[in-house]
């Protein structure tokens, strides 16, 4: 594995023309929000880039992230980019299993020490390591071990990035995110449940092209893809601006494609590229299909109130609080009223009429 073919050779072997490659670089450049004039540089970098070794670890996850990255029909950006890397370990995708698989991982880690790319999906159970092990190795141990020699770590999916569903209240496994364990290395988070394939490959392309990581925000997300909210980029935004909202999933507003805010769309508080890159090769995204964004790429999204409650609407039932507060108000009010009545009565009974003789006779 030491002498991996470079991308240029891979492309030629696959019958991709130069035009196809240029086209790929142009779309990639646009996707990564680089200046259009950078396209030739991207092409140049990709041509000569050695295929880096990639180790993909899957912990407490549902394989949705892997499904997402593989479920794109060829030939596509995703397909192309996967030919640009050497996926040395991915226990769902690799042919090898058992000891052979683990041996491949260890071999790759040793051979590419300090150079391989570590991709993680799924959260890590710290409550009881027994909840998730691979070949008898706890997720935490495997992650720490693999992270040591990694050139970069990419946490793919909301579970790896933020703990995701396993961490949802009451977090029975004590799940944590990758960055909660790995604190001495930059971790790129690509949240989403699952993340958009093009976003994953876009980050890989960036790594390949520039031999480094893209600009990250304070939550470790590539700004290029997570800089705007779904709402910012939503094609239904004009309806929001006009105050036209669907009130139900089958009402007139829904049929007319009005804003889904009132149906609980989390677009305004969700940062992702769904509204621009879309899903299934740009076919659609949830809002276009008539369902509000559920905010799956946000930390703790599962605990952020009902999926069908507007983002600013109360999440708590106020009835008991309101009842208690009103009752307390009545209690306090009646008490104060009683005190007031008493003091007025007392004052009235104690007061003596003012006489003219007293007027100028100030004490």
């Amino acid at each position, binding site marked *: 594995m030491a002498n991996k073919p470079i991308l240029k050779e891979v492309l030629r072997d696959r019958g991709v023309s130069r035009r196809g490659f240029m086209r790929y670089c142009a779309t990639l450049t646009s996707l990564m929000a680089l200046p259009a004039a950078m396209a030739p540089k991207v092409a140049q970098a990709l041509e000569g880039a050695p295929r880096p070794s990639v180790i993909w670890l899957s912990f407490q996850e549902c394989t949705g992230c892997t499904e997402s990255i593989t479920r794109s029909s060829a030939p596509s950006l995703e397909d192309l980019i996967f030919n640009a890397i050497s996926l040395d370990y991915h226990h769902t995708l690799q042919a090898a299993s058992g000891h052979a698989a683990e041996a491949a991982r260890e071999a790759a880690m040793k051979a590419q020490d300090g150079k391989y790319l570590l991709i993680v999906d799924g959260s890590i159970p710290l409550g009881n390591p027994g909840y998730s092990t691979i070949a008898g190795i706890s997720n935490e141990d495997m992650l720490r071990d693999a992270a040591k020699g990694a050139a970069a770590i990419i946490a793919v999916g909301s579970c790896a990035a933020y703990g995701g569903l396993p961490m949802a209240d009451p977090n029975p496994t004590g799940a944590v995110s990758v960055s909660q364990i790995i604190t001495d290395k930059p971790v790129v988070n690509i949240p989403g449940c699952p993340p958009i394939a093009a976003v994953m490959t876009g980050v890989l392309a960036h790594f390949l092209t520039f031999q480094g990581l893209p600009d990250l925000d304070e939550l470790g997300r590539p700004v290029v893809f997570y800089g705007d909210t779904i709402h910012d980029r939503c094609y239904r935004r004009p309806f929001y601006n006009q105050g036209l909202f669907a009130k139900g999933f089958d009402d007139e507003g829904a049929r007319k494609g009005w804003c889904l805010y009132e149906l609980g769309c989390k677009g305004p508080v969700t940062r992702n590229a769904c509204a621009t890159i879309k899903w299934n090769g740009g076919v659609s995204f949830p809002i276009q299909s008539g369902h509000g964004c559920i905010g799956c790429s946000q930390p703790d999204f599962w605990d952020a109130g009902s999926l069908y409650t507007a983002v600013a609407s109360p999440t708590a039932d106020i009835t008991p609080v309101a009842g208690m507060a009103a009752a307390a108000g009545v209690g306090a009010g009646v008490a104060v009223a009683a005190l007031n009545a008493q003091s*007025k009565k007392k004052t009235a009974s104690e*007061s003596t009429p003012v006489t*003219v003789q007293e*007027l*100028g006779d100030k004490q």
Partner: protein
Amino acid sequence: MTAVSVERGVEALRQQVDASVASYMSSCIHCGLCAQACLFYTETGDPKYTPQRKLEPLYRVWKNDFTLLGRLASMAGLGCKITDEFLDEWEELIYDSCTLCGRCTMACPVGIDITAVVRKTREGMVASGHVPEGLIGAATRAVEGGGPMGDLLPALKAVIRRSEAATGIPVEVDKEGAEYMVILSAQETVGFPEIVEAYSKIFKQAGVTWTISTKAFEGTNVGIQIGSRDIARTLVQRVVDAAEELKVKAVIAPECGHAYTALRWEGPNLIGRTYEFDVVHITELVDQLIKEGRIKFKGKHKSKITYHDPCQTNRRGGMLNPPRAILAEISENLVEMEDAGLWNWCCGGGGGVGANERADELKTKVFMRKKRQLDGVKPDELVTSCANCRNIIEEALDHYEIDLPVLGLTEMVAEYMETDEIEEPAADKAVKGEDQ
């Protein structure tokens, strides 16, 4: 407690707090619009005269003693303090710079009856000994001598004699069973005695029986002006006793704002019951007599006149229409001042300010507002129906050296009323001639 004190003042204020006060105090957002309604602010430009500031003493009592937060704050020693110094400072605001005219009450966007609050606050000022000297003197004379100017019985008797001589109509005093009992304002007895002649003529013509009680002929109630319900009650009680003793159908409140307020609106509440007689203002009665066709007019006043609405009978008293209904009968050239009617400006001397010598300079200064109103219409004569307004305006016109006669409405009615020639004695004309 035998002497007035801050504690006694606070107690008196406490008794003034009711749901309306609590609602008012909860509503003020310090918008300051009331300042523009108050001639003490508009004529001096000094923001301290803003009516809102006059809420402060009662506000503090309410806050400290009638709200949960205030009670807690007081317990923690953080309550708003009410001290002698504080009340000293507010004395000027409550007495010298408020005529209880009620314009601020009309202007407040959230509906605070500031005037009522000032009236209530005076109760506390009285009980704490923060009353202007002039009012103390007037109150003492009223309680001990029968009227704010002392015992006016001799003066009244002289006025009656003069009237009888002038009109030839006898005035029956202390006559039990008369329909109406007339009370007078001290200012009328002393300054405008012709009013008795007017009453005589009008009632004679209209066939109304009336009397004057020698026990209670004083209508002015200094207790209301000074703001002491105890003193006010004593004075109202005199009138009530006399009227009920004489078994009159109604007492006629004179052309005097506070006399009307005292007897008509505050009196029953002061003595804690409704009277056995009605209270009717002379202007209302005249208006009624005209409507019933019992008095008619023989001509109209030709020169240009304007009418000054007294605050207490008009805005605060409820007589919005009668004065102008009467004027329509007797005048052919009535011009209205700016803001006339419901929004009329005060003469500057109501609410006890006129009796408070300390406020003389301020009172004269704020008359500028009335002066501007008058300058706007330039009347030949000014008509009003309040002896106090009349007195204040005459004094101020003198001060500003303006030559403008001030007439009483009832006297004008008598002058233009059609009388049965046969019954009019020749002596009347002779006496009138002498007067002129």
